[in-house]
């Protein structure tokens, strides 16, 4: 017997907890994944390794990971090694990933896309997860569609297949998944690291927001030919376009690899504000050719950009979700081609924010302290007046407001105020709402 069977019991090494194997759910290159249940009735995933010559290394790797605390809740982190009473070899158990998590490919294929707030939430969660991992000096090594699962409704993320995680110095056979591999990995000049993870993360985020690959444009497509004999081998092409001479589809100084006319990237790229596209430009120009922590986009930069993007989202009169672009004041709506009518702007110390339903005010907006977690205010549609907005005070202090043409008023914790031009005071911080 190579693998446990349904109905077998495996035992966790450290705690002796018994897990009953319930069903076989997947089989991959390294082994088989089962669903198991512990004595408390909780679902757990059990991955059992296929016999191979690296088994000992894999064992040490997993054991090492079980010694770390989980860097971020999004990781389906190895909990413990499991053994079977009769079968040689080993497996490990991890949190059961619920069915609501699917591959991003599934999501991108759908006709109705998640709304932008959800997309941004997915981006933020992924970024936080990798930030936590990299901060600990660990790298993931194999970012791809199969390993980073998303909940397209809630914006949650689940990162599976954590067995390749380790410090850069720990030896690993894995090199990554082709489309996500950094050029230096494709060329064999380096092994997977935090630096190569940062590249893969940028590719994943590009897919998430732009619906395509950042290097697949006209130039790459032109290399495909129907002409037999002229055809280059896939390996040669990949090495060339993803490794030796990679070129970003929106490289500002070389337009020869722009997206094909029918590429969804063409349409999506235009939707986003310039500052956000600028982060991708950095990731796939200097970040493409100079593999270093300083030249690639780190999670710190993505964090700022993703939160800022969230602050600029609103709805055009036609109903389409659009982003305010402070660099292009009269930018037209991607859907109706009209310039959207003016929206209320909160001039927060961290930068201007569009007040629209779903906007959350955080400490960072006021104090620039990088605390994005707590919502201290939120914007919702007005319950009684269509088209108007209310701003709910979800903080522990009163807001002092001076609406234009009215006296000074107080918005107590829990109260709401109608959004209109005014001066606002949060403790010592003064801001304004304008509606130009």
């Amino acid at each position: 017997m190579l693998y446990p069977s349904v109905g077998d019991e495996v035992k966790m090494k450290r705690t002796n907890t018994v897990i009953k194997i319930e069903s076989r759910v997947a089989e991959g290159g390294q082994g088989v994944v089962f669903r198991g249940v512990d004595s408390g009735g909780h679902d757990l995933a059990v991955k059992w390794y296929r016999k191979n010559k690296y088994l000992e290394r894999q064992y040490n790797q997993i054991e090492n990971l079980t010694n770390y605390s989980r860097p971020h809740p999004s990781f389906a982190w190895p909990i413990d090694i499991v053994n079977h009473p009769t079968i040689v070899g080993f497996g490990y158990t991890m949190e059961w990933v619920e069915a609501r998590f699917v591959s991003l490919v599934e999501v991108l294929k759908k006709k109705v896309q998640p709304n932008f707030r959800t997309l941004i939430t997915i981006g933020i969660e992924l970024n936080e997860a990798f930030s936590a991992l990299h901060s600990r000096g660990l790298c993931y090594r194999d970012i791809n569609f199969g390993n980073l699962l998303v909940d397209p409704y809630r914006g949650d993320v689940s990162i599976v297949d954590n067995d390749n995680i380790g410090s850069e110095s720990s030896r690993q056979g894995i090199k990554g998944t082709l489309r996500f591999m950094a050029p230096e990995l494709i060329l064999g000049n380096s092994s997977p690291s935090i630096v190569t993870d940062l590249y893969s993360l940028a590719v994943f985020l590009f897919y998430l927001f732009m619906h395509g690959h950042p290097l697949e444009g006209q130039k790459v497509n032109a290399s495909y030919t129907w002409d037999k004999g002229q055809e280059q081998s896939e390996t040669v092409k990949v090495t060339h376009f993803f490794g030796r001479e990679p070129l970003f589809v929106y490289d500002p100084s070389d337009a020869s690899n722009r997206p094909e006319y029918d590429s969804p990237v063409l349409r999506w790229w235009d939707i986003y504000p310039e500052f956000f596209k600028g982060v991708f430009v950095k990731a796939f120009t200097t970040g493409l050719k100079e593999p270093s922590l300083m030249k690639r986009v780190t999670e710190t930069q993505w964090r700022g950009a993703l939160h800022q993007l969230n602050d600029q989202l609103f709805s055009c009169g036609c109903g389409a979700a659009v982003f305010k672009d402070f660099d292009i004041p009269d930018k037209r709506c991607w859907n109706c081609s009209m310039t959207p009518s003016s929206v209320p702007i909160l001039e927060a110390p961290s930068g201007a924010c569009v007040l629209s339903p779903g906007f959350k005010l955080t400490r960072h907006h006021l104090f620039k302290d990088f605390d994005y977690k707590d919502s201290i205010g939120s914007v919702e549609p007005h319950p009684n007046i269509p088209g108007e907005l209310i701003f709910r005070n979800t903080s522990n202090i009163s807001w002092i407001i001076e609406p234009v043409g009215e006296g000074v008023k107080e918005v107590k914790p829990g109260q709401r105020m109608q959004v209109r031009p005014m001066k606002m005071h949060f403790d010592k911080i003064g801001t304004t709402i304008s509606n130009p």
Partner: protein
Amino acid sequence: MNDLNSLMPGGGISRRSLHFFILADCSGSMKVDGRIQSLNYAIASIAPTLINWEREQEQAQIFVRAIAFADQAWWHIESPQPIDLLNWVPLTHVEKGLTSMGAAIRMVADAISPEKFEPRSLRPVILLITDGKPTDVEEFEIGLRELFSLPAGKAAIRLAVAIGQGANVSYLSRFINDPDIPVLVAENVDQIAVKLTAATLAISKMSSIGSDRKQVSEQIILPAVNSFIQADDDTIV
């Protein structure tokens, strides 16, 4: 600006400098659990926030220097590099290397001594990144004494990042010497930019009255405005 400057007496003006010193642990123990990678990653994460900060506050130019330490301390970046041009060559651990943190502190103390330190610069920032405790404890004590005896050392914003789980923070706290400034972990290094605000308060001059560090931390402690779950209120103001 050139025209005006040429009509101005003297050798020209510029913004004041903020000298940012990184003291980076390269001891043998930094090899395990990706600690040295964590250190390099932390520095790469700090850089963009510092660049942003420099751009926004429009007051100071940040210059970075770095001292690495293991069996001894050495300059990793000796001549001050403008933050936006910082080219961080990743550090590697020294096999079986000791933790000469004291030597590193003495080295930075020397660099900010009145003879060497640019007098018009803002209060310096010294960031210590380490996974442990000094092996040169005596030097550590001497280093702290030297540092705190210097005007710029006393005034310095001293910050520390603990690398790895269960790092010994007692030495780091002694280096920070301010109970209100917590030891950071690599994950929240972007908060370093927040602490820098205090460094620019050189313009907000103080008399020698008042306790030394307390007022510094007061300046960098932000109001406690937090999320608060409460019963909904029907009022719409």
